[in-house]
Structure formats: C-alpha cells, structure tokens
C-alpha cells in the first residue's frame, strides 16, 4: 500500500521536476515546481514526518514560491532559449550533473525504498511535533541558534539594501 503511494508521488515529483527545467515559460516552471514540492511533502508524510510535511508546504509552497512567482511576474522574464546557456561552462556543468547522478544511483542501488523505523516507536512518532521540538531545543540548540542568527542577519541585510536604494533616490 505504502509503496504504491510512494511510486505515485515519486513519479509525479520527478516528472514535475523535469518539467520545471524543460518548460520555456517561467510561470509554468513555477507551477511545476509547486507540484514537485507538494509531492515531496506527501513523501514526508509517508516517512512519518508530518511536521516536516506541513512545514514544507507552509514555507516552501506557501511562502517561498509565492515570492518566486511575484518576482517572475514583476520582472517580466521572457521565454528562455536553450542557446543562451550553451557557453564554455556548459561542459563543466554537464559533468557535475552526471557525477551527481552517478552518486545518487550508487546510493539508491544500495538502499531500500522503505526506511527502517529508527530509534522511535510508532507511539512516539504519533507525537512527531513534540519529538522534533524537544530535539531542536535541547540536543541541537546550538546549530538551531546559529541558523536563526544567520536568518536574522539575512533579514537585516535585505532591509539595509532597500534603505540604501531609497536614500540614493531622494
């Protein structure tokens, strides 16, 4: 049962991900990226990580993609052509992608599709949010704080950038 669902989600996710790159229209790309992210969220649910799934939809689909779309619409990016990207870096890029796929194939061939349960029992996993929260604020408090500090810096940086622009105009 779970495997059937996994394959449904996985196939749609891969097709959508390929379509993001293939489609010429940036707005279509954005739509396919949304579909792909939603499928990944569904796979998180299969992995018994509902908190991660909800966060994925909330943050990536709900906020990040809206900003992407907003930018695409404001900047009015035209249809892309393949020719533009055929420059000297193309060979290196293709090489890197092939290498990545080799690594992924190696990992995928060694792994199994269903993940073992891990250190948590089914009852504990039912309270996924509490487990994640407790781990974040006890064991991983240092990286957590570092990440939040980095985000704060990015936030302040964004505001500073906008303010400079305003100052130069007036």
């Amino acid at each position, binding site marked *: 049962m779970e495997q059937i669902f996994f394959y449904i989600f996985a196939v749609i996710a891969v097709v959508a991900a390929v379509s993001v790159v293939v489609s010429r229209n940036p707005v279509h790309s954005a739509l396919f990226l949304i579909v792909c992210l939603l499928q990944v969220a569904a796979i998180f649910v299969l992995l018994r990580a509902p908190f991660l799934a909800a966060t994925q939809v909330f943050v990536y689909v709900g906020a990040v993609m*809206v900003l992407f779309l907003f930018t695409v619409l404001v900047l009015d990016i035209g249809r892309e052509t393949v020719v533009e990207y055929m420059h000297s870096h193309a060979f290196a890029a293709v090489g890197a992608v092939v290498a990545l796929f080799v690594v992924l194939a190696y990992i995928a061939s060694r792994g199994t599709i269903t993940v073992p349960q891990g250190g948590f029992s089914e009852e504990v996993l039912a309270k996924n949010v509490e487990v994640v929260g407790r781990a974040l604020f006890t064991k991983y408090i240092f990286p957590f704080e570092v990440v939040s500090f980095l985000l704060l810096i990015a936030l302040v940086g964004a505001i500073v950038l906008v303010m400079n622009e305003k100052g130069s105009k007036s």
Partner: protein
Amino acid sequence: MIDLALIITIIIMVVKVGLLTMILFSLPMPLTWIERKVAGHIHARLGPFRVGPHGIMQPMADTVKLLFKEDIVPEKADKLIFKLAPLIAMIPAFAVFVAIPVGGTWTVPFIDQEMNLYVTDMNVGLLYILAMGGLGIYGIIFGGWASNSKYALLGGMRSAAQMISYEVALSFAAVGVVMMSNSLSLVDIVNTQGGGFWNWNFFYLPVGPVWFFIFIIAGSAEINRIPFDLAEDEGTLAAGFHTEYSGMKFSFFMLAEYIALVTVSVLAVVLFFGGWNPPIDYTIPFVPIAFIWLFWFVIKVSVFIYMFMWVRFTLPRYRYDQLMNIGWKILIPISLVNILITGFMRI
C-alpha cells in the same frame, strides 16, 4: 490480508469526506442569498425579492444563469493555466476542512460504537490548515496572470502581496493559540477549552482577546473581504483577478471565496470560542450529546459569518499603503509583544 476493520475505517472516512464536500458545495448558495439580504437591509432596501418568497430562490436562478453563460477564454490568455486557476483556488479551500473538528468523540447509542465527528485528528492540524490556506493564493495569482489583462494581473499581484503580509500575523495568532492550548491538534485545542465559557481561549485574559483580534483582522485580510478587498477594488481594477472570467469558472472563484469565509469563521470558533463546547456544560435527557455539540458549533459559526457580512457592508476599503502599514507596523509588533506576555503567563 484484507482486514475488515480497516475496510470499515476507510468506508467511514470516505463517507465523512463525501458528506463534508457536499455540505461545502451547497453552502455558498444560501450564503449568497443571506449576504445579499444582509446587504439589502443594511442599505435600507429589500435585497433580492423577485424569485420565490423573499427571493429565496435567487441563488438557484443565479446558478442557472452561470451555467448557461458563455464561457469565454481570452484569445491571448495562457489557456492551460487560465482553465486550471479556478480549480487551484478551490481545492485548498476544501482540503482545509479535513482537519477541522465539528464535534468530539461520540458513543453512538444502540450500536455502542465510538464515532469521531471529524475526519482526522492530525497532530499538526493547525500547521496543516495554515499551509493549505496559504495555497489558496495560487488560484488568484495564476488566474490574474493567465488572463493576460493588466487589471487581472495587478489584482493578482496585490492580493499576493497582501496575503504574504497578513499570513505572518495570522501565523502569529496561531502560535498564540498553540501557546495557550499546548497543542497543534485542533481536537486537543478544543478539548482544553471545555467546561464552560471562562475556559475559552478568548477569555484567557489579558492576551486572549488580543490574539483574537489579530486573528480576525489578519483572517479577513487573508480572505480578501472588505475592508481589505484590495484585490478586487472595482474603482481602480475593474473586478481584479477574475475580470476575464465568466460562467462556471467565475463561480468557482466565488465558491472558493465563500468557503474561505466559512473557514475563517470556523477557525475563529475552534481556536478562540471553544469549538463545539456549549458555554456552560449541560445535557438534555434523550438528546444525544452530539446534537448539542453540532448545535453550538453551527450557532457560533453562523454568528461569525454574519459578523463578516455586517462588516462588509459597514466599512469602507483601506488604501493600499494603509493596508501594508496595518499588517507590518501594527499587527506584527503587537503579536511579538503578545507572544512574550503569553510566554510569561504560561511558565
């Protein structure tokens, strides 16, 4: 291999989802009629009066009209996305209701079976609702963009900016509720408010009412109701993002909008006004407790729906810069301070 109990669980779930969908599909019909009646009486006129007694068949007539109206797709529109957008707007609006409880666990008399008056009790219920609610915006953006019309595009962009801004405040209000109730599960949130109206989150003084007002302001901005309906500001933007839509596609947008109205009302009840709990616990002999729950749930939700309609025909519309100021410079700072106070109260 095939487990009978599992099959029964699945059947019950399918029936529940089907029932919920049917109710939601049919709700906008009476709601449009009520809204127009409320509008009429607030404007000191009668409202729809011709079709049926007191115009009660007006929604039927409108549906027939919308069904037979020519379905126009603009020539320069992005055909695929233009056709998908109403569905993208509608599906999340329905999906939200999966996590919403209308009652607790009820033991059915005679067959002695336990029955949950909700589809699922997710342990991330509130996050799920916020996430799904956030998806509704795509229908508006894609619809506005695909129409290839400047009014529609501007309307879509405005509502995108507005929803991003107010989603922050709405999420903060949800954080406040989670802090007051100690759970993300909506069933647990309602259960902690049981026992009497003084246990409702609204009466968690002094922070409860503040959270409620943040929620209701951000919520009405999120569903594009007056005074925040900048997305369809007819004075400057024609009809906003659905300018180019007609016929059933237009009615899908309207359907999504009405369901969003119901969602915010339901959430206000579940998060702040004790959900299905009556103001004071009581039982009536021979009346199942589930009926009492449903009765109070429907009453409370109706009050909120009426309130939204009342506000709609009472207040003027905000200017765009005022809208942004309210969102970023008033609601969010108040939320931050309120989180601090709530935190100290919960220690």
